[in-house]
């Protein structure tokens, strides 16, 4: 082993506190990268595998009722590969003991038995129904797991008003229900929503669909144009009550999954990059300072005639050891946390398998990048030293980077003791700035972990206290005259009711289009209150349509522009309407009209299709039951259930990332403060020792050294809070998710916590360094300078 290698190993041991904190810093950066990118790739991988294996359809269409004889004609459309018609319908499920009525959807399996050609089921347990057994059903895994349903059990459903019982023969996953939720709800409610797959005969009979289909799925031939196929399909289905064909983009499960993947990709890129950038920057600063603290050693080696290259190689090895340690820690922690994050997605996304994928290039890339950043910092510091004439290097660094004149006036009439930390800070402004920035950057890490709670709170507050003010939302089986509202108002426990008319539409503006539900609200509605950006209630002018800000952005329109509204129901007419107002929404994308105006547009009477209710909490339970039994009620969604699911599912995800990022925030804070203090001690140990010799007490000396850091920390924390605000805005700006809009709200409590965490980490580091100051060997310190 060469002498320098021996020195390197001794350095690693002697500086183990610093080596460890720096390795943790690298580890944290690598871990976030490995965790986020790994999670993203795993989700993407699971999706692709499942879609391919189960032949997930590419175009979807719903019709009121079309004859099966139409199918060959559709198969003839150029570009269509495989086409399959089926019957689906909404179902109410009679689940004894359910707090809130269970809803569901029933999907037909081919008449001839066996798997469908497209959207094949992936059986976890059991088998498909026998072609002749109309009472057999396969149940989707989400509900089966949530309610512990096993093959052999019976499930009673009300189809089209008729009660029917099915025996479960299998439990399965389906590519079109990777994400399942009640229609329109952005969160899964596994306990309240069931999917059943049964023989076509059974469904067809219930919905009077013999020889007909109500849904169409197809795949495209290679090179086919999706819009062309959709246009042709729409033309063929129009006479049969077609509701507008659409691609995967508008398929609910796929759309949500894509949104989440896009979100995950944003998080997998922005957060780790910010984090990694910070870690790399700190690595650069901390290692640079560490080398600078060894300037006399370096200068001495150089004076002894050592060429520069082996000296540089020596430090590169040191960096490699530290980075190797950090990267190993980071990969292990990142993979472990990635598995955990992926576990958080399991209740959201039902894939038959979702293995954690960690491609080998990822940790290698992360390690190489941290090594490069670290080396840059070290080499820059080294170059500064090696460029000095040997004699200069051997002398202690000149104190005044600021002109001596300027520095001399710093502190004015303050005591000499107070001037030392002050001038320590001002004498090397660049280094002081970097240290402060480093400490400041710890704050956003903690804030990034914690602010999600604030954001979710304000999301819920905005959506459910200000906009959706009802306790439940009832979907009717068909549009009904407005007086149906009055009937509902008479039900026991109902305090207030408001009818709404909701129709599926496709909005178009220039080249962009979006499929969604257009809601007609009564003037002065109190159970659903559209609000503008300042949260003031908005009256929707009758002559046009109101869009949510986010929808308008997607369509690229502004207030006053016109959009084409294609109604995907009834006569399927298109209208050209002005955008008369912009409103806020948080969950989903909103398009609104005044209900009368909407009905006139549809050329219909005063009709409603949905009812919002305010309910007496004491009577709620009974009311849900009552509603479930009413024949014209298709589904009831209950706000309380929604909120519970929101809490359970989202809160857990948020908690995981909060814990991880807060932990990293602490690592950063400790890494920077501890290393700054250690380097300061290393550089100024003799100064401190000579003050001790002059009779200064340990406490006085510690105050001089740590006072400087304390000032840096006190300035850095508010700076960090400002940075945090910026980072949060940056990350939220980078995401583009139509399911949720996350407001950039950070509560004072979050700011306070982040500040306290960083101050605490700084204090703990200071205590450790303080103990070193106490142990300063005066005689040795004096001797080392001789």
């Amino acid at each position, binding site marked *: 082993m060469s002498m320098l290698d021996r020195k390197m190993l001794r350095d690693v041991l002697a500086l183990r506190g610093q080596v460890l904190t720096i390795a943790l810093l690298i580890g944290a950066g690598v871990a976030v990268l490995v965790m986020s990118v790994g999670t993203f790739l795993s989700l993407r991988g699971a999706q692709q595998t499942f879609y391919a294996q189960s032949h997930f359809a590419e175009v979807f269409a719903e019709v009121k009722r079309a004859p099966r004889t139409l199918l060959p004609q559709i198969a003839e459309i150029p570009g269509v590969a495989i086409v399959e018609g089926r019957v689906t319908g909404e179902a109410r499920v009679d689940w004894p003991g359910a707090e809130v009525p269970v809803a569901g959807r029933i999907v037909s399996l081919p008449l001839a038995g066996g798997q469908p050609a497209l959207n094949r089921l992936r059986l976890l347990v059991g088998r498909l129904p026998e072609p002749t057994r109309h009472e057999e059903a396969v149940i989707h895994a989400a509900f089966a797991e949530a309610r512990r349903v096993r093959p052999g059990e019976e499930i009673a459903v009300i189809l089209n008003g008729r009660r029917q019982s099915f025996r479960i023969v299998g439990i399965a996953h389906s590519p079109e229900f990777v994400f399942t939720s009640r229609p329109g709800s952005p969160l899964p409610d596994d306990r309240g929503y069931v999917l059943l797959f049964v023989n076509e005969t059974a469904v067809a009979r219930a919905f009077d669909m013999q020889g007909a289909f109500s849904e169409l799925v197809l795949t495209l031939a290679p090179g086919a144009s999706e819009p062309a196929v959709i246009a042709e399909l729409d033309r063929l289905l129009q006479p049969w009550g077609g509701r507008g064909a659409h691609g995967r983009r508008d398929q609910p499960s796929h759309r949500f999954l894509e949104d989440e993947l896009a979100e995950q990709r944003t998080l997998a890129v922005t957060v780790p990059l910010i984090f990694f950038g910070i870690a790399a920057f700190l690595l650069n600063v901390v290692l640079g300072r560490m080398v600078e603290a060894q300037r006399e050693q370096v200068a001495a080696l150089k004076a002894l005639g050592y060429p520069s290259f082996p000296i540089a190689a020596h430090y590169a090895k040191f960096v490699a050891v530290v980075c190797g340690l950090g990267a190993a820690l980071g990969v292990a922690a990142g993979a472990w946390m990635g598995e955990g994050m992926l576990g958080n997605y399991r209740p959201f996304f039902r894939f038959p398998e979702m293995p954690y994928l960690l491609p080998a290039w990822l940790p290698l890339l992360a390690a190489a990048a941290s090594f490069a950043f670290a080396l840059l910092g070290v080499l820059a510091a080294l170059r500064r030293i090696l460029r000095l004439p040997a004699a200069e290097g051997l002398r202690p660094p000149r104190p005044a980077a600021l002109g001596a004149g300027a520095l*001399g006036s710093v502190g004015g009439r303050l005591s000499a003791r107070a001037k030392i930390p002050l001038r320590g800070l001002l004498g090397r402004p660049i280094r002081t700035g970097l240290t402060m920035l480093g400490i400041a950057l710890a704050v956003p890490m903690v804030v990034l972990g914690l602010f999600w709670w604030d954001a979710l709170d304000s999301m819920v507050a905005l959506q459910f206290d200000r906009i959706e003010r009802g306790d439940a939302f009832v979907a009717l089986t068909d549009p009904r005259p407005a007086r149906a509202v009055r009937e509902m108002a008479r039900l026991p426990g109902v305090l207030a009711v408001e009818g709404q008319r909701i129709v599926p539409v496709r909005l178009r503006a220039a080249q962009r289009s979006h499929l969604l539900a257009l809601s007609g609200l009564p003037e002065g509605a109190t159970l659903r209150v559209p609000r503008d950006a300042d949260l003031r209630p908005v009256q929707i002018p009758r002559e046009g349509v109101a869009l949510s800000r986010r929808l308008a952005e997607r369509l690229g329109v502004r207030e006053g522009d016109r959009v084409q509204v294609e109604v995907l129901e009834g006569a399927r007419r298109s209208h050209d309407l002005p955008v008369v107002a912009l409103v806020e929404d948080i969950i989903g994308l909103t398009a609104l009209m005044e209900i009368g105006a909407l009905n006139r547009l549809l050329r219909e009477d005063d009709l409603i299709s949905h009812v919002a209710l305010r309910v007496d909490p004491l009577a709620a339970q009974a009311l849900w039951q009552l509603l479930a039994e009413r024949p014209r009620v298709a589904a009831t969604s209950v706000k309380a259930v929604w909120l519970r699911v929101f809490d359970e599912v989202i809160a857990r995800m948020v908690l995981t990332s909060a814990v991880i990022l807060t932990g990293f925030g602490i690592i950063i804070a400790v890494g920077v403060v501890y290393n700054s203090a250690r380097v300061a001690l290393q550089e100024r140990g003799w100064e401190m020792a000579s003050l001790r010799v*002059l*009779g200064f007490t340990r406490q006085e000396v510690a105050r001089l050294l740590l006072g400087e850091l304390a000032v840096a920390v006190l300035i850095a924390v508010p700076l960090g809070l400002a940075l945090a605000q910026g980072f949060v805005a940056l990350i939220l700006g980078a995401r583009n998710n139509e399911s949720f809009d996350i407001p950039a709200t950070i509560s004072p409590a979050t700011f306070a916590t982040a500040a306290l965490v960083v101050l605490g980490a700084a204090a703990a580091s200071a205590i450790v360094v303080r103990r070193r100051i106490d142990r300063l060997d*005066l005689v040795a310190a004096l001797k080392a300078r001789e």
Partner: protein
Amino acid sequence: MDGAVPSAGDPPATGGAPPIFVARALCKSYGSGEAAVHALRDLDLDILQGEFVVLIGPSGSGKSTLLNILGGLDTPSSGRAAWRDHELAGADEAALTAYRREHVGFVFQSYNLIPSLTARENVELVAEIARDPMRAEEALALVGLSHRLGHFPGQLSGGEQQRVAVARAIVKRPDALLCDEPTGALDVETGKLVLSAISRANREVGATTVVITHNAAIAGMADRVLHMGGGRIVAIEANRRRLSPEELVW
């Protein structure tokens, strides 16, 4: 120089002043067993109030070790060391700090000034924690540096820095001024300036002064010269007349 080895109880050669530093059977060793290094072996010593003592001897003979113990920077392995009624041998860290703070002024070969403070501020730094200090300007005037008050150590020559260090050591009117090779890094002329500053401090502040040096010529300034060798005092020389630094022949 070739006098007999003095015995422990030998009265000092000069005057009837009481001893201010007393060391008896002082031992300091590093390590243990075979590998142990004995820096001081059974050393006995008396230094009188106001005396100017020069410690001289080959490298490794224990001079710095002795001075550090007298200054409360280090503690002996065994034996007694006392300053007046302060027992230095068994004292704890806090007591030694207080002792250094109140009674001792140090000057080292390396000047150990605080680089971010000016000459005046370096001196004030110590004045701030002293009980009855002189003004910093006064201390700097004593070492002949009245004209460089506002300069940083980096702007001063080595000799000037060392004189600032002397001013810093005497500003608190110490009872003892301990200097470890104060001229080691300086040329003759500068060395003389520093030595005269030390000698003036000894006379005008009345500080009992111990100076370590390798330079036998400096011995002429002292009341007594203690020769060390192998961790002991091997000879004591008393000067009849103290030479002024200017008279020294280097």
